[in-house]
């Protein structure tokens, strides 16, 4: 099947290339264009060759300026064949664009992506060689609007095309005009969840390149900035594109304010998306960030990964915008549950907790409760997480010296009959953790992974040492398994008893629970 398929597109694309060349070379073959446009209807699955062809044709036409219609005001429409032809070409151009946009929603993923790229390329070509001849900078916003309309589909998730669109959002003009267009498009009463998802993703991508604040850019490396900035539709002989971060910021605010009116929190996926966008990209841009407080607070109460994400926003609010949040620490405390290991944001949570708990003004009992809870969790965590948790505990111990009493109870310790710490207590400072000891850490000294083991030893040694708290290690990509494989060993130890079969001579356990050979 694959072989047959491979040959066909090759043939088709070769044919198409011929046709396009003929069309571009002489007007005799003008009908070729019509043919090509016709072929869109015949095809159902893979539009890529067709899209590439029209991209080639119209980029060339735009470059030549064949599409420019000379309209002289107060004169009847030119009826000459030349003008007719131009008009026909314009029509074809519009059709082609429409076709390409249609293709974004249809067919194979590859061809969809190609369609988007074609649209963008044509947009770029038109920006460089505008249909109405002008000297200034021109950005074909209408085309962008069309593209966005397609991307913001209500039914179909456009994650893949939007992800592809990322390569164009790097251009400053696309970013600025994109935000403008998006803010114009955004107004809508009751969007579907998919629409919201697409919208948020698109906005996320548009804000990917950081929007600098004006005062910063002006003062500092302005020259560098201008060199680095990439402009999609600009060319040397034109006026440079006037990039204005303030405008961008305003539009971004508008986009967000529209989105705020939607029921973002109805569906967890959208909710997560929105929070991520807000926390990662929008917070610094918002003019009045405290308006997001309500949403963040609601999210914080939602539990699970959503509250973890909201936490970051709240932290931002607390730190930068003087928001006072009640029971902040209890909420943080409640987030440390075994379920957190299953979420993607556990690293973020640990990082945030490290920041939250770095204040030296916190009551001892609260920090102790955290230390206790973290070490409890480390007991059941996967090796990587356990290491990170222990690191966090270590930092706590270093930042809050009174906690050292959980490691070394100085004058004659009394033996207790149970652990005074109450795991179930929701209020951190009431969990009586200060009376307890970090027995969990001493158990973790027997962890099977050497790295965790040594980390635990370091925590235990924290009682006597005075060191700088280490900043939480960035999420490590290197797998523990691979790291272990890379270790060098002087010798390779072997078992000293030769096994006589499947049962190992020293402490066989598998066969004790399994009857495998009968």
């Amino acid at each position: 099947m694959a072989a047959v398929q491979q040959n066909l597109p090759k043939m088709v694309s070769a044919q198409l290339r011929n046709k396009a060349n003929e069309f571009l070379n002489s007007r005799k073959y003008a009908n070729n264009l019509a043919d090509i446009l016709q072929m869109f209807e015949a095809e159902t699955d893979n539009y890529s060759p067709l899209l590439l062809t029209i991209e080639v044709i119209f980029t060339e036409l735009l470059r030549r300026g064949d599409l420019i219609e000379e309209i002289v005001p107060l004169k009847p429409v030119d009826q000459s064949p030349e003008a007719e032809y131009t008009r026909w070409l314009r029509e074809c151009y519009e059709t082609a664009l429409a076709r390409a946009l249609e293709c974004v929603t249809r067919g194979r993923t590859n061809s969809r992506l190609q369609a988007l790229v074609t649209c963008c390329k044509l947009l770029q070509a038109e920006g460089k060689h505008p249909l109405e001849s002008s000297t200034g900078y021109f950005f074909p916003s209408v085309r962008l609007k069309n593209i966005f309309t397609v991307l913001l589909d209500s039914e179909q998730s456009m994650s893949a095309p939007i992800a592809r669109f990322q390569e164009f959002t790097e251009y400053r003009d696309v970013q600025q005009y994109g935000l403008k267009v998006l803010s114009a498009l955004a107004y809508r009463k009751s969007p579907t969840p998919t629409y919201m998802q697409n919208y948020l993703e698109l906005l996320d991508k548009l804000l990917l390149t950081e929007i600098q604040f004006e005062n910063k850019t002006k003062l500092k490396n302005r020259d560098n900035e201008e060199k680095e900035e990439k402009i999609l539709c600009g060319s040397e002989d034109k006026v440079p594109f006037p990039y204005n971060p303030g405008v961008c910021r305003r539009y971004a605010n508008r986009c967000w304010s529209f989105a705020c009116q939607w029921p973002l929190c109805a569906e967890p996926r959208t909710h997560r998306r929105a929070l991520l966008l807000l926390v990662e990209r929008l917070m610094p841009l918002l003019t009045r960030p405290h308006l997001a407080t309500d949403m963040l607070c609601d999210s914080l109460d939602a539990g699970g990964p959503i509250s973890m994400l909201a936490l970051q926003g709240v932290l931002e609010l607390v730190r930068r915008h003087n928001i006072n949040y009640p029971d902040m620490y209890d909420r943080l405390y409640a987030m440390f549950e075994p379920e957190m290991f299953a979420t993607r944001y556990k690293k973020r949570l640990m990082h945030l907790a490290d920041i939250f708990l770095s204040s030296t003004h916190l009551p001892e009992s609260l920090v102790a409760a955290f230390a206790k809870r973290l070490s409890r969790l480390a007991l059941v965590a996967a090796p990587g997480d356990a290491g990170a948790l222990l690191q966090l505990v270590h930092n706590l111990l270093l930042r809050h010296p009174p906690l050292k009493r959980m490691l070394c109870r100085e004058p004659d310790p009394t033996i207790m009959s149970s652990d005074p710490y109450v795991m179930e207590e929701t209020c951190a400072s009431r969990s009586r953790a200060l009376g307890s000891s970090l027995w969990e850490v001493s158990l973790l000294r027997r962890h099977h992974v050497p790295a965790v083991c040594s980390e635990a030893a370091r925590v235990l040694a924290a009682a006597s040492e005075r060191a700088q708290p280490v900043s939480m290690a960035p999420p490590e990509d290197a797998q523990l398994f691979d790291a272990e494989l890379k270790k060098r060993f002087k010798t390779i130890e072997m078992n000293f008893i030769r096994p006589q079969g499947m049962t190992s001579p020293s402490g066989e356990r598998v066969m004790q629970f399994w009857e495998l050979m009968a």
Partner: protein
Amino acid sequence: MAKVKNKRNSGLADKVHNKRKVDGVKKKLNPFEVHINREKIKVLGKKSKHDRGLPGVSRGKAIQKRKETLGTEMKLMNKTNAFIDRRIGEKNNQLSSEDRMIARFAAERARQHSKKDIYNLADDEILTHRGQTLEQIEKFDDPRSSDEDDDEGKKFGGLGDDFVSEGHFGGGILSKTEAKDGAKSHKDLIEQLIAESKKRKAEKQKEKEQTLDLTEKLDSEWKDLQPVVFKRPRIEEKESVIDKLLKQAEKKNEAYDKMMRELRFEKRGTPSDGLKSDEKQAKEERERLEKLEQERLQRMEGDDEVFAPRTQKPTPKHRSADDLDDNFDLEDEKEIMLAYDKDGKPLLPENVLKDYSVPNAKPKFEDGISDTSSDDDADDESEEDEEEEANDSGSEEDDDGEPNQNESLDKKDEKPNKINSTNDKQESTDESDDESDDNEEINDLKEEKGNTLKKQKSIELKKENKSEASKTKEKEVTNIPENKTKETSKANTIDKKEANGILIGDDEDESDDESGDGSDDGSEEDDEIESEKEGVDDLKDLKESEEESADEVDAEEETEKIGSFFDLKLAEGDNLKELLTGKTPSQQSAALQKLIKSYDPGLAVNNKELLSRLFAHMLQYVNDIFTDLKDEGDIIKAFLIFDKLAPHFYDLAQTNKVSTKKFLVELLKEKHDNYLKRPKRIPDLDTLIFFKLVSLIYPTSDFRHPVTTPSLIFMSEILSLSRFGDAFSISRGLFVTSLVLEYTILSKRLVPSAVNFLRGILYLCANTSILNPIQVVPPFKLHRDAKILNLEDDCSKMVVENKMAAKDFALGEIDDDFKIRCLNASMGLLKEFFDYFNEFEAQACLFEPHINLAGRIDLDLYPKKVRSKVSEIVNYMKSALEVKTFTPLTKEQKKVKALRLYEPDFQEVFTGSKSSKLSRENAERARLQTKYKREMKGALREIRRDKAYIASVKIRQKIHGDNMRKDKVKQIYKEASIQQGELNKLKRMK
């Protein structure tokens, strides 16, 4: 004092010293010269040497001494020539002249007595007698030359007395007249004299010649006679006959004699340790194991040093102040231990090796194979890939299962046949024994001894087998450890070959070949494939011929295969497959053993490398037999094969530790990568079995180990990432958990994922309600898959096995039986894990959820045995936690170092000397040191005084010189003034 320039001055001081002794006639003391030293403290009974002294006298003495030594030396300073009287004792007044002579003679003798030949007492010393050497006296000269002796007695040159009296001195006047009668003139007389003497001389000459002739004659005659006198007549007679005979005999026996002599002179066996008794041997073995166990424990505690150095800095090595910054490169203090692995390559990281020139150090590889191994690896990998492709294709076809099934069916059919041929077995064992003898390593004595017993046992076993039905038989044979059944298995091998080889062999081989060829197609050239195919065909022919002649051909074929096993690098994997397929596990084991033995590393150079490659292929083989197992029979069979192969894995790993480790690690890595592609899906047995293999080969208890640590991490990843929602995953999860238990049984390490998994399983078993949830840890989730292991029907009457079984791996739907056994096994596992942490306080919080969950299980529905076991474990855990005490963590008490205090030095026996406490060496040392100090002090003082003396001498000389000069100048002036006076006088005269 300047350096002694001349040797001749060196002995001066001694001489003077000696002289002083000689004239040691004491003068009377001048009382005015005596100086009495005041005694500060008077000690009773103490003899003082220094209570009085003679300062003047001693100073005079000292000056005199210096004058004689330093003074003379100074005189001779810068002078090259000197007369030295070296006659011995010449200057010594004490010696009499005779003593002097004796001394000189002795010196002469001593001089002659060279050291060269101390044992040759009298050789070089020439003894004389009357001034003549004895040699000269004793020489027996030719009589001819001794003629002067004759003349000696005669006076006057042999002239006659009358002649002399007459002729000499003018003759006598008195007798002259008488003589005149003869009227001889003086002239006549002289002539007569001459003639007479000549005549006498001639006579003498003649006489002499005659005697000479006679002696010569006598000599020659004697020489002729000699043989007659000395030879024994017997020999003369028999020589001709007997000699010949003897010679002939000798020639005949030469070989024998030679051999005998050789034997006699050959080095006997070197004395070695005597044969050890069984007990002794067992004891030694035990001791060895104990030692190894100790080492293992050390490794288990192991790298505590990993974090210890963080707190305590390494103490700097002492450097004395002298060698600070003296621009010498300090030697690198880091000591490395140079160790070699079995192949004689150093076991060190290469960066270290670079610095040191280590023999045999191969540039790159951390493993033992030679440099070519990189190519091999590539090949191997590609090969593996190919094989995998083949497997894939196999699985796509979905026909894979069938041949196996056929096989098992066939086996069942053939089993009765086996029993028939016990006689054959006996023969075949003999044969195989012979064969194997060639290859066999020298077994331990013990083993050999045991062999006879084992043989008996095996025979008994056979008898049993005879009587018993077919299916149970195999079980028994295989259950007995391989070593014991070596003989039986060998026997069985051949029989079964008869059975299986014929019927199944063809089918299977064909399929295998096809797949093998198919995989080869891509990479190999056509020629090779053809040749291979031919080879395969040949083998097939051989197999067909087997039908007629069973054993020998088969054995031959096998040896042939073994012989050509490593011929083609690419075909090795296929060769192995060929060698092993269609055989029972024990047969496979035997075949492998043969293969391994025939490529013993002692036999050829590159065998080691070959064996390491074999290891890789065996891994591949195991991988193959464990892939895509669909039904219980296959799984059991795979495990049986693995059971037999495992020891060989161990052996191979022992022979080449480094490369086998590399293979295993690569395999693990590949499996791990595969797993990470779909982390939610638990890996199948073809991955899990290697964990078991690793635990068989490597110690699992080490703190850190290149193989076991990664595999344990892998397992814990499996348990913490995979999703457990069906029988497939749960059974494998339990298998992994029990493997984890096995890995940690000695070290008692915490593997949270295993504990969490058990918690999850209990959660699945428990009758949980949504209202009152008990937390679970990911990968398990609240309310997901809940109750899938929950027993709903009353199964209290059901009879259930204790253990999980192979069939569980193939289970599609979860049934009650499975549920019950799952609970049973996981509770068993849980107890083991629980016991790990008995002395830890945190045990409580770790296992509390388990106990809670176990409480939710509706135990009434379970069979009685299981119910009692579960409740027993739960109660045990509960009671253990109840009595648990929580001791708060405390800092490790450091011992306070006491301040050093001065204490009275009590001596049990007071000797007065400080050094009494010291050891003998130290006392000696202290004594010498004080002596040295004192001597040093004295020497310094002497030198000071020497200097003073020299200075005084010099100034005196200077003054003396000056005076002389002044005198001379005065003299000159005087003379000049006289002259002037005279001149003036003369002038005045004019």
